[in-house]
């Protein structure tokens, strides 16, 4: 049953890759981040302009491919502060997740807590974001941090596709000994958001977001 729940959660789509981790009031947002060592997916529902609740799944594998973790969680996202400027937007987000984590080097499952915070700043040409998320369970610490910076070569009209170049550096304690660096091509077209890249371990990555 838990495996089924994990599969469903991962199929829904996922995470820290997002420009904004929730959609507008009344919307459902699905996100996914897929690579050999990291597969994350989740969906949430924004029940106010600042609050969303959702469910997700995360599969992690160590660099040496020896250890794996699978987390299924329910999570709450809160837009703590937003600055709507004339030519920019900045946000601070809070995350609170609770779930069930399993691993191939311990028996059974453990209760996991996953609080986090994200700060981002975006103009029509520049994007910056920093995310910290703690993944804690008894005898487990897989705290995660990422930094993203990107730019677009030109502005576009609302109906046009905008290409971005984004560089992400991320690291997870206890599973990866070195930071993962991934340059990505981001394409944004109205309701579609896709990122494709190859990380420093020469592994392909694909992220997406979609708002229903």
């Amino acid at each position, binding site marked *: 049953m838990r495996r089924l729940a994990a599969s469903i959660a991962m199929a829904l789509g996922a995470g820290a890759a997002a420009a904004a981790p929730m959609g*507008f*009031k*009344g919307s459902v947002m699905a996100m996914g981040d897929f690579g050999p060592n990291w597969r994350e997916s989740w969906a949430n529902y924004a029940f106010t302009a600042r609050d969303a609740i959702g469910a997700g799944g995360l599969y992690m594998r160590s660099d040496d491919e020896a250890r794996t973790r699978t987390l299924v969680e329910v999570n709450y996202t809160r837009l703590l502060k937003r600055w709507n400027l*004339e030519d*920019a*937007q900045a946000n601070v987000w809070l995350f609170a997740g609770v779930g069930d984590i399993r691993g191939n080097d311990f028996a059974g499952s453990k209760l996991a807590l996953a609080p986090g915070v994200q700060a981002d700043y975006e103009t029509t040409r520049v994007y910056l974001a920093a995310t910290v998320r703690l993944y804690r369970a008894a005898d487990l610490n897989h705290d995660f941090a990422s930094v993203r910076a990107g730019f677009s070569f030109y502005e576009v009209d*609302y109906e046009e596709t905008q290409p971005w170049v984004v560089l992400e550096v991320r690291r997870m304690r206890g599973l990866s000994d070195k930071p993962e660096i991934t340059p990505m091509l981001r394409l944004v077209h109205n309701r579609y958001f896709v990122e494709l890249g190859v990380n420093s371990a020469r592994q392909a990555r694909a992220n997406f977001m979609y708002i229903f």
Partner: protein
Amino acid sequence: MNHSSRFLMAVLLAGSAASAFASTSVKASVNGMVCAFCAQGIEKRLSKLPAAKAVYVDLKQKVVAVEVKEGQLLDPKTVTAEIVDAGYDVTKLETVDQSIAEIKAGMKVKK
């Protein structure tokens, strides 16, 4: 009815006919609107308003406009509330006698 009265009547009728078919839009300047993916909430929410005929979003000029259906009224405060619920701030709001096509054409000239 003399000639001048008939002429005056014709002018008045023509004027009222023109105003009956004139398009009205609520036009807003919006802060924080930097990304099409994020701003789609504005379009979706405003498009659902019963009085909305068409919605226009201009990222470069930071303008959102809603054309009102003929014979219907759209309270500008409703437009503000929808944009705020989509996560943005309205800095200026006006009702203009223009269709979306006319507003769009005007924006293209500005660019």
